[in-house]
């Protein structure tokens, strides 16, 4: 036995395993914000990254422009054909907007779940380890970003703010595996169907929308948007399109596979969404801790 304790390397290994478990346990527990040394380090790293990412964006943008030039002609043709439809659509939207406003005035409801304020941000880094799908953006607490805000691109939802530092923040993408990462969603159709975005199928590259009742019929190609019922996200942010539906493990629910509208790669400029309508107080929502559905 004394020989066992004399083996210095074994002791070091054992101690470091204990420290490892303790550190992982410390960082895995529910943290509302990071400790200040972590925030300081992340902000410093963010500063360096934003310096480096600017020339990198420029170079990448140059090559992208070259690629775009190649198929300009075909794109132009397609866009022209779409333009004609757009004019009539615009008139329709205008009319509906006016209608909607009048009706709202009659009802006396001013704020809706749909109202939000956009906040532009630039991606300055991405997690190279690729298990935890996260990006770092150049706006932080000083710009008014808070935890759990929705993050979108022009094509749809890409994720939510995971942690906030003073001058930078971390965004967790929808493609990240995190059981706490749930988003309340609507599958649009003749009747709206509610479900929860829960997880990502890496092999099929599709989001999984679970907890859809088994009686409801869902077709391919239906649009999926956020419902705004979770408390933080506004209503109506596009998520993607249904590509497949399959029954759940026990046949009680269905799971819809949704192809995300936004590309999770090659992100450069993103928009952080601040919902205008206040979030309900946790105390008002009943007793007990509820699951975090966004």
């Amino acid at each position, binding site marked *: 036995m004394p020989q066992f304790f004399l083996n210095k390397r074994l002791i070091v290994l054992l101690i470091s395993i204990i420290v490892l478990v303790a550190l992982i346990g410390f960082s895995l527990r529910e943290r509302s914000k990071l400790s200040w040394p972590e925030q300081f380090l992340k902000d410093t790293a963010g500063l360096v*990254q934003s310096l480096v990412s600017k020339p990198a964006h420029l170079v990448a943008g140059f090559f992208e422009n070259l690629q775009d030039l190649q198929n300009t002609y075909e794109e132009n043709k397609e866009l022209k054909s779409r333009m004609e439809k757009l004019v009539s659509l615009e008139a329709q939207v205008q009319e509906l907007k006016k209608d909607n406003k009048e009706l709202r005035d009659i009802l006396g409801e001013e704020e809706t779940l749909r109202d939000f304020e956009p906040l532009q941000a630039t991606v300055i880094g991405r997690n*190279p380890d690729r298990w935890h799908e996260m990006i770092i953006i150049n706006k932080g607490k000083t710009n008014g970003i808070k935890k759990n805000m929705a993050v979108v691109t022009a094509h749809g939802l890409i994720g939510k703010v995971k942690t906030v530092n003073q001058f930078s923040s971390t965004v967790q993408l929808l493609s990240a595996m995190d059981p706490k990462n749930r988003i309340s969603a609507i599958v649009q159709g003749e009747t709206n169907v509610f479900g929860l975005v829960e997880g990502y199928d890496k092999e099929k590259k599709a989001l999984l929308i679970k907890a859809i009742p088994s009686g409801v019929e869902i077709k391919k190609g239906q649009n999926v948007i956020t419902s705004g019922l979770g408390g933080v996200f506004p209503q109506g942010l596009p998520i993607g399109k249904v590509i497949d539906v399959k029954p759940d493990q026990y046949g009680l629910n269905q799971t819809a596979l949704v192809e995300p509208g936004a590309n999770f790669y090659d992100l450069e400029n993103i928009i952080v969404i601040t919902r205008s309508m206040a979030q309900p107080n946790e105390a008002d929502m009943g007793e007990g801790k509820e699951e975090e559905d966004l």
Partner: protein
Amino acid sequence: MKKFLLPLLFLILFLLESIFVQYIPPEVFGKNYILAPHFLFGGILFLTIYAGRKYGIIYGAIFGLLFDIVWIEIIGIYFFLFPLIAYLISKIMHVLQTNIIVAFLVSLVGIALLELGVYEMDFLIHITTLEFKSFITMRFYPSLILNAVFLLIAAYPLKRHFESFVESLRDE
């Protein structure tokens, strides 16, 4: 001046990984392979082989911690694995001759160990539910090939740099 060159080199590798991932297309050669760069760790392994175990473990620990805090937000995974694998590699190098081809192959073994170690840890704490088989075909082999290409390009400059670093230490 020369003292700052080494941390600066690793800092560049640290940032290079992120930039690489940011601009990599989602589909490589028509398949959705996941290419994970380990340029930083490749550099640390070369440091271990050419400048000695002490430097490898110290740099492994510092940059592992930095990596965990800045990218992963779970402290411990790389903080533990970087120095551990650097130590194992230095043990292996006791048996083998130090030449550039051996260093290249041993570094690849180290990167493979890192990939497997991180996969096992992430699987344990439910960060991933990817099956082992899909992990091997989707991520493990493509990443190894990517890092082999990087090491092929960087092996000689890294070797030269670390050797001159060791010499400058001896002169002092």
